[in-house]
């Protein structure tokens, strides 16, 4: 079947998470993504051995999943001969993507000006930590960037530590932002013949993770920057509640009708008649009392009973699942949000994250997991870059390629 990005070649000079996952989205839809890595060790992500202090297991899912559907070339870009190979690759490329620092790229003669001169149609994309402007060039990792956006400080119960949105959550967001930026620039390039420089920074992306709350703050609502307790909410019918086993999320509008249905679902006639909770404003003003009352009702039975009762009353609610529940969630498998892929490293099929975006006529796929370091160097040198074998030997002798 045709692929949406067939014929688009991407030079992927990225490490760790944000950059690789951006290129993964393009590779999933059929772009020819060539990952360029240093000969010694390659992408640092290859070295991940544990996650949450747990051994990563017999295959490195950190690296192999976000680098799936890619090829790998090992090139020493510190050497002028390595740069020469890179330039020939750039002549044949549509996109260059890197999350190395701008000074790092400059030092290896890979600045935008340099590459644009070689290929004016090139879309040149970077993922800086804090943006191209403003002079901050320190290393950027997900959590430290999240920390300064305000996204963390508004989460959690008052007095509790700020909350990290999950390992790599902001990187994943910067990655899809970057992929979108590249697609926009490619669309334009196809129309005008001209490439351009774009940057999707980790910081810029992560400001959007908190966008609704930031925008509210900008409009003068100082409280949107602060932690809020679940014990005192604007609408007690839209809240998390503990049951005898799992927590549940109840999502109902604060209307008299929804409240009446909730009381029926709970079999709580006395709540339905409680004078404090008779009106929209009453339920809002007395939210602390109402949340406490709902807590004590819901605590006595397991979540399955309550969800059934709520569903019977037409109230939207969900169990708050853990990762073990999600791993076997039928909905995720049926929509290919999870899929199986063959892993060369362990010679068996493994479970991987699938595709969060579906294109009906040109669906993406997971054809291969991440490449071995430099597995395609020689073949690409010959077939794509059209070097003769003696030239390749000469590059090897100079240490430009292993």
């Amino acid at each position, binding site marked *: 079947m045709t692929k949406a990005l067939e014929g688009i070649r991407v030079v992927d000079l990225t490490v760790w998470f944000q950059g690789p*996952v951006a290129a993964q989205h393009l590779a999933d839809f059929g772009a020819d993504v060539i990952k360029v890595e240093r000969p010694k060790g390659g992408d640092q992500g290859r070295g991940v051995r544990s996650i949450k202090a747990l051994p990563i297991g017999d295959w490195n899912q950190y690296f192999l999943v976000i680098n799936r559907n890619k090829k790998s070339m090992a090139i020493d870009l510190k050497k002028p001969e390595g740069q020469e190979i890179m330039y020939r690759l750039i002549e044949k490329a549509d996109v260059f993507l890197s999350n190395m620092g701008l000074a790092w790229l400059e030092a290896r003669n890979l600045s935008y000006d340099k590459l644009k001169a070689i290929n004016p149609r090139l879309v040149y994309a970077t993922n800086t930590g804090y943006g191209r402007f403003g002079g901050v060039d320190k290393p950027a990792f997900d*959590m430290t960037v999240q920390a300064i956006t305000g996204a963390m400080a*508004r989460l959690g119960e008052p007095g509790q530590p700020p909350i990290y949105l999950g390992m790599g959550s902001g990187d994943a967001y910067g990655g899809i932002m970057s992929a979108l930026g590249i697609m*926009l620039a490619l669309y334009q390039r196809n129309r005008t013949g001209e490439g351009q420089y774009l940057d999707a920074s980790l910081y810029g992306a992560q400001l959007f993770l908190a966008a609704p709350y930031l*925008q509210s703050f900008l409009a003068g609502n100082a409280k*949107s920057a602060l932690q809020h307790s679940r014990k005192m909410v604007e609408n007690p019918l839209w809240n998390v509640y503990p049951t005898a086993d799992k927590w549940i*999320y109840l999502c109902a509008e604060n209307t008299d009708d929804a409240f009446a249905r909730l009381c029926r679902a709970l079999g709580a006639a006395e709540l339905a008649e409680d004078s404090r909770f008779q009106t929209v404003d009453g339920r809002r003003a007395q939210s602390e009392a109402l949340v406490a009352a709902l807590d004590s009702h819901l605590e006595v039975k397991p979540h399955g009973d309550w969800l059934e009762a709520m569903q019977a009353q037409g109230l939207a609610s969900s169990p708050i699942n853990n990762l073990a529940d999600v791993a076997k969630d039928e909905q995720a498998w049926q929509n290919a949000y999870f899929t199986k892929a063959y892993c060369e490293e362990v010679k068996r099929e493994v479970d*991987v994250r699938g595709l969060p975006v579906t294109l009906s006529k040109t669906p993406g796929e997971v054809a291969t997991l991440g490449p071995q370091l430099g597995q395609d160097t020689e073949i690409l040198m010959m077939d794509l870059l059209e070097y003769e074998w003696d030239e390749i030997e000469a590059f090897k002798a100079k240490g430009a390629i292993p």
Partner: protein
Amino acid sequence: MSNALEDVIVLDLTRDFSTSLSAAFLADFGGRVIRLEFLTAVDQADHQLAPTKGTWDFEADLIHRNKQSVALDPATDKGRELLVELTAKADVLVTDWMMAELAALSLDYASVSRINPEIIYGRSSGFGPKGPDKDLPAIDELASARTGMMPILGQPGEPPVYTGAGAMHNSVMLAFGVVTALIHRQATGEGQEVDTSLFAANMYGASLDIQAFLAIGEGDRFIHPISRLDVSNPMSGSLYPSKDGRWVTLTMPDTDRWWPGLAQALGIDPEDDRFNTHDKRCEENRLELIHLFEERFQTQPGSHWRQVFDEKQMSADVIGRIATSWSWTIPASARSRAWGSPFS
């Protein structure tokens, strides 16, 4: 200057924050985004926050910027005719309506593509176009609850945490899918459907934890919250309170590189033989080091630590409240406090 999507006409049939913002991203880059507002029965206003008179409706300005709006009544002949004409001329339709609602107005993909086979039809749902839950409402909280992350984001004993990040992921994913399909259409002339869901987007936001669990298949540290005093690496993913109560966070997974500088800043001897290798810091004496950090970070206020991190160019920071992060980032020339673009 030309804009990337200046030849693209987008019909915006959205009512939720996430999808409306998706269309706004297309508008930001030059797409002519026309919002469809129907004058009949359909509960268009249901999810919109009614602004208090005379105040700035900041949410609408965030998610509907750069758009045009057309109001019509699809129940009348004239309105229906106009709708068909718009559909015929559009390059993209973006929606978050339920399947049945769309079908009732002949705005489902089958009907629309009969009029305009080249259209890119982007739809976001709650849980995806297939499976037992395909018709559940598109509410980000419900999708987030199904993603497995809410129980483990907070500290042990605390309630589950809803972050809202999944909805933001969804906005970008739908826009990405639509522009990818546009590129395919440039090459082949072929239109198609693009699907995303809040569930998929929430899962992608949690990708590292979910993928690790899929691969490892067990582990209490994936199922129950990890105390901040029990993090895997005292120098990465960790949180410590400073003297004035502001929180310090460190992300220096490569501890060999950063240990000498950090130890010195904290008044710890870098050669201390309890902590002088990565394995000692992250395995053997991990808890001891966490407690030492806990004590030392409390000797100075947040501002002191921020200065230290800046001077040493460390990947570490003091957690901003929104107010402080804004003052750090606002360019002097900015005229309005509206939302900029994440790209430059």
